[in-house]
């Protein structure tokens, strides 16, 4: 079981970065005005941020990391590891994290690796990055997570195109002498991998000219095999069945209750999915912040982005009890419960080309 507790780590700071360009749902030419209205109300996206040509995930994450490191006053050579969670890496090989080590001016003695995860990626990545912490070795980790999902979507696919937004994030994790238990649980179900995937471009189905030919699907959808396929109902059913018991389990292990938790930062999959989970767990609306309305579903960046969007300011957070849960592509789902100590949450940063 990947259920663990780590006692001597803390989140020193969180930052998130989004592109400047706004795409509004009401301007999406493939939906009628009534469809747009229903989409905004139920799916919850009113607008989202998309990168301009040439801007990639590592650019957004690097901007977030620079702002964060400066704000919390970390010397670049005090960082011992860099972990990068993304499904939109710069190159097929090598790992983008290694390129980021150089771009951020970190020393060669810094370990760096990528993790290919999406919606659950922030929480699984946080668990892995925090697990690296060791008082005699790795004491500081910079953990980056994000995606430019807009690159993988077909404009002619109403089930994906208006849903996903682009964002990057940076989280600073460090060793702490003070006992600070952080509870994690991560689970996986690869049987359902094709509920949300891109078929061509990997080694099992290598990209050929045929992969780029648009095909028609029910509901007037057109996409090619290098673009994202989303079976909304399957992902919805998976999330509402698997996520609430996992959150309950981690709360119980942390000896916490909904009443004693200040905020639940849930992956911004779509509003109705998050609302169903929220209602099943009887979490009051004010404890469940949203960012999907203005940023869309931002994959592994959605949790830190929601934190920055709703809690980002000059005041460091102490004694705040939070629970976070990421769920989706894989299929994969993960939850963490912790108390923040002296954590700097920056307001959302806009990326300037």
């Amino acid at each position, binding site marked *: 079981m990947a259920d663990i507790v780590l006692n001597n780590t803390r989140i020193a700071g969180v930052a998130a970065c989004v592109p400047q360009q706004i795409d509004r749902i009401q301007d999406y030419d493939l939906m009628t005005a009534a469809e747009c209205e229903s989409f905004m109300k*139920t799916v919850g996206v009113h607008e989202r941020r998309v990168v301009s040509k040439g801007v990639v995930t590592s650019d957004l994450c690097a901007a977030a990391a620079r702002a964060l490191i400066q704000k919390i006053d970390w010397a670049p050579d005090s960082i011992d590891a860099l972990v990068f969670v993304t499904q939109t890496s710069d190159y097929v090989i090598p790992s983008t994290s290694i390129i980021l080590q150089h771009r951020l001016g970190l020393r060669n003695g810094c370990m760096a690796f990528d993790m290919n995860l999406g919606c659950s990626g922030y929480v699984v990545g946080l668990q892995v990055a925090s697990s690296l912490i060791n008082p005699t070795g790795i004491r500081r980790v910079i953990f980056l997570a994000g995606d430019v999902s807009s690159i993988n979507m077909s404009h002619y696919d109403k089930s994906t195109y208006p849903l996903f937004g682009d964002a990057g994030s940076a989280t600073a994790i460090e060793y702490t002498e003070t006992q600070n238990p952080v509870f994690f649980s991560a689970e996986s179900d690869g049987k359902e991998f094709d509920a949300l995937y891109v078929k061509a471009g990997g080694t099992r189905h290598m990209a050929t000219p045929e992969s780029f030919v648009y095909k028609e699907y029910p509901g007037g959808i057109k996409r090619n095999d290098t673009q994202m396929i989303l079976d909304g109902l399957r992902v*919805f059913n998976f999330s*509402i*069945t698997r996520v609430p018991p996992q959150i309950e389990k981690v709360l119980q292990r942390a000896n916490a209750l909904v009443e004693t938790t200040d905020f639940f930062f849930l992956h911004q999959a779509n509003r109705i999915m998050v609302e169903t989970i929220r209602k099943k767990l009887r979490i009051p609306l004010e404890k469940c912040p949203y960012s999907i309305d203005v940023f869309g579903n931002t994959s592994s960046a959605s949790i830190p982005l929601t934190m920055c969007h709703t809690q980002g300011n000059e005041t460091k957070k102490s004694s705040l009890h939070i629970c976070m849960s990421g769920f989706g592509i894989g299929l994969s789902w993960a939850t963490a419960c912790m108390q923040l100590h002296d954590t700097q949450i920056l307001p959302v940063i806009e990326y300037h080309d």
Partner: protein
Amino acid sequence: MIDKISFKKEKSIGESSNFFLFLFFTTSVMELLINDFISKIENEFEDVEPGSVKPATQFRNHFDWTSVNALILFSMINVEYNVTLSAEDLQKSTTIQDLFNIIETKAANG
């Protein structure tokens, strides 16, 4: 709620000395339950006129039936009855009664 009712039903069968009372009791309870389901649906969909939905209503014709509305229905059923409907369940259902029967069966089977 469904669990409580099925318990009552079993108890009624045990008291089979009054078969007609049992029939009356079960029928009215069933009506109550489906009416409750209907009012939950009417609450969820603003465009649906209260009182316009009946057990025999064919939901695809009555609602503005889209995948978004399907999610609203699935969400309500999951929150209220702790039952997860599948795409196949939806495919084989035509009326509100069909949906309700599936919810009952799934709730009874845990």
